[in-house]
């Protein structure tokens, strides 16, 4: 099944929930009972239009305050593919939700209110999607109906955004501008007559046209071992299968592999998916691999192709997104979860904080607060096997866990 994951980003009142509601409505994904509930509530509130944001704002606090405060997942499908939208809130204080949403997405929609143009938060939204190397970005310039569908306004906003693009780090990101009105339904799913000067497609047309293989970043194959399957039954007495998910590239029967950290060599004997044998395990498939030789491999170890080793080190520098109210400072200790592997880590040095509006760095700080993005060096109690995030989205990322609270307190992208 073909699934495209999309993250949305926009500031308060940019109409993000309305846009999602509009997509659901125009793709006929809203069921009668949901639609009736929206109609009823819109009427109660005295609106003369349908408040589609009611379709997504799921928590009581959100409905009371009229804002979105946590990542919600929304599902719809077309004849072509299934879509999952991670609806992430746009407030300054909720950067962590945006990072979270972008981490699992292959595409992002950034909303801009045509009346306000590119604002400080737009910089942040673009910066985060660029930092997380989301391949496809749609810049939806919304509320065009409120600026008389003006081509000049659209072009001015586009030019401002292109200024930002010149400062980006991840240059292969594809960026598409679309003028829309979510409220009126212009250029969301259906084409509009209101903007004859715009020749491009609608948001949905654009998403439908994306090539899924091209939008999920490829790399070299990495196989982190999740679990060792040892049935110990009569029929499978000597079976030792290494269960895990294949990331970055393919693995095939007969490939010469190296197990990390032991660096023992072997060869792939069989690849199973359930009880079926396969010649090749493709990217993102959850398989079970057996090896020709009896070597010691356990959870947290990694199988890689011979001659294609990742960096093996007890120290690295990363860009991190800090997500906790307790500050991160040099000397603090955390658990680092890198894929399915866990190690103890100590903050060696906080180099600088990165201003998420692309305006530069701040070297004066030595501790990080909630929502800060910074360059940090960690020292580990044992080596991990990693790639740079720019080469491998999975093997170059990790999360930080506070061993007191057990909470996930940050995410990192290895340089």
């Amino acid at each position, binding site marked *: 099944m073909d*699934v495209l994951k999309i993250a949305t980003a926009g500031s308060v009142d940019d109409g993000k929930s309305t846009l999602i509601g509009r997509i659901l409505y125009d793709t006929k994904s809203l*069921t009668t*009972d*949901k639609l009736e*509930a929206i109609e009823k509530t819109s009427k109660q509130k005295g609106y003369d239009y349908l408040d589609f944001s009611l379709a*997504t*704002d*799921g*928590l*009581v606090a959100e*409905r009371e305050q009229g804002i979105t405060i*946590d*990542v*919600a*997942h*929304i*599902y719809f*499908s077309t004849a072509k593919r299934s879509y*999952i939208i991670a609806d992430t809130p746009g407030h300054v204080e909720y950067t*962590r939700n945006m*990072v*979270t949403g972008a981490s*699992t997405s292959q595409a992002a929609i950034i909303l801009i209110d045509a009346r306000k143009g590119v604002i400080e938060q737009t910089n942040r939204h673009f910066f985060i999607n660029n930092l997380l190397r989301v391949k496809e970005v749609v810049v939806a310039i919304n509320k065009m109906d409120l600026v008389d569908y003006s081509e000049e306004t659209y072009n001015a906003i586009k030019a401002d955004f292109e200024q930002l693009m010149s400062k980006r780090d991840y240059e292969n990101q594809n960026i598409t501008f679309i003028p829309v009105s979510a409220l009126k339904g212009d250029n969301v799913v259906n084409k509009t007559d209101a903007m004859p000067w715009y020749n491009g497609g609608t948001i949905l047309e654009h998403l439908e046209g994306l090539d899924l293989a091209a939008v999920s970043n490829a790399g070299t194959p990495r196989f982190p071992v*999740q*679990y060792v*399957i*040892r*049935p110990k*039954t009569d*029929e*499978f007495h000597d*079976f030792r299968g290494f*269960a*895990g*998910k294949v990331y970055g590239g393919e693995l095939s029967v007969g490939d010469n592999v190296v197990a990390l950290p032991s660096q023992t060599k072997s060869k792939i004997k069989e690849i*199973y*998916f*359930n*009880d079926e*044998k*396969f*010649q*090749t*395990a*493709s990217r*993102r*498939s*959850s398989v079970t691999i057996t090896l020709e030789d009896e070597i010691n491999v356990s*959870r947290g170890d990694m199988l890689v192709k011979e001659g294609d080793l990742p960096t093996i080190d007890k120290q690295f520098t990363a860009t991190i997104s800090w997500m906790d109210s307790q500050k991160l400072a040099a000397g603090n200790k955390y658990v680092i*979860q890198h*894929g*399915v592997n866990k190690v103890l880590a100590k903050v060696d040095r906080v180099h600088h904080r990165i201003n998420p509006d692309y305006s530069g760095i701040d070297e004066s700080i030595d501790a990080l607060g909630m929502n800060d993005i910074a360059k940090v060096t960690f020292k580990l109690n044992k080596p991990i096997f990693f790639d740079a995030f720019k080469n491998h*989205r*999975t093997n170059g*990322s990790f999360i930080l*866990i506070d061993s007191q609270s*057990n*909470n*996930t307190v940050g*995410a990192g992208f290895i340089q």
Partner: protein
Amino acid sequence: MKDTSHVNALENEAIYIFREVAAQFEKPVLLFSGGKDSITLVRLAQKAFWPAKIPFPLMHIDTGHNFPETIEFRDRLVKELGLELIVRNVQDSIDQGKVKEESGRYSSRNSLQTTTLLDAIEEFKFDACIGGARRDEEKARAKERIFSVRDDFGQWDEKNQRPELFDMLNGQIELGQNVRVFPISNWTELDVWSYIEKEEIEIPSIYFAHKRKIFLRDGLIWSHSEFVYQEDDEEVIERMVRFRTVGDMSCTAAVFSDAADISSVVQEIRDSTISERGARIDDKRSEAAMEKRKQQGYF
């Protein structure tokens, strides 16, 4: 031999989650209701660990008001697959005076299950409870994590959830806490049905069109049964119906249907304009019904 590229992205994700549960927790349990979602979970768990057996038991919190077809199906499945099944009864919680039976027109044992579940978690010291909830079912569930931490009282703190990045699932908890795990979080109702069709998974007969004694109330189709409160003026009629979702009899409404096999059910879901939980009487109580129940420790 072929390559695995044709396999379903959602299936791969679910298998990955099952393996994380087995690796990260000491005492996981799969919450089994006999409904299509939990039956799908069993199939996915089998695939995740083959050729080994599923490394954790199933547990059913039985309201005592289940459809007999569901219970019969449950017992047969467990026997055929050689699985371990734990059953805990809401009736026992009532007899022990821990919960009070509801009365009146909309009485149901559905919300009473929470107490029985929390007691069972404590009794067996389960640290991970795997459930078949899906984010597309309901607005509050749309915000649920794949690994969702519950405190000593089984409560869900929706404003203080752990962020889940990339594929990384953080299952670290303190003693007394447990994690609710939702491997099919990202599946839609149609995804589940399509999977059941493709995998030829057997499901209880009440999911298919059958003749049943029913009565109508509030535009919903209620089963005529000793477990369902009924007014004298609510007339019993016999119609062809089926169930889209299976909870206990007092909280599950039927739909009129002639879909008697899996392919017609899939077609019916595809064409449907009513959401699945539109037939759940428990959600109709208020706009925030699900969120409130979840905070108290519901599935």
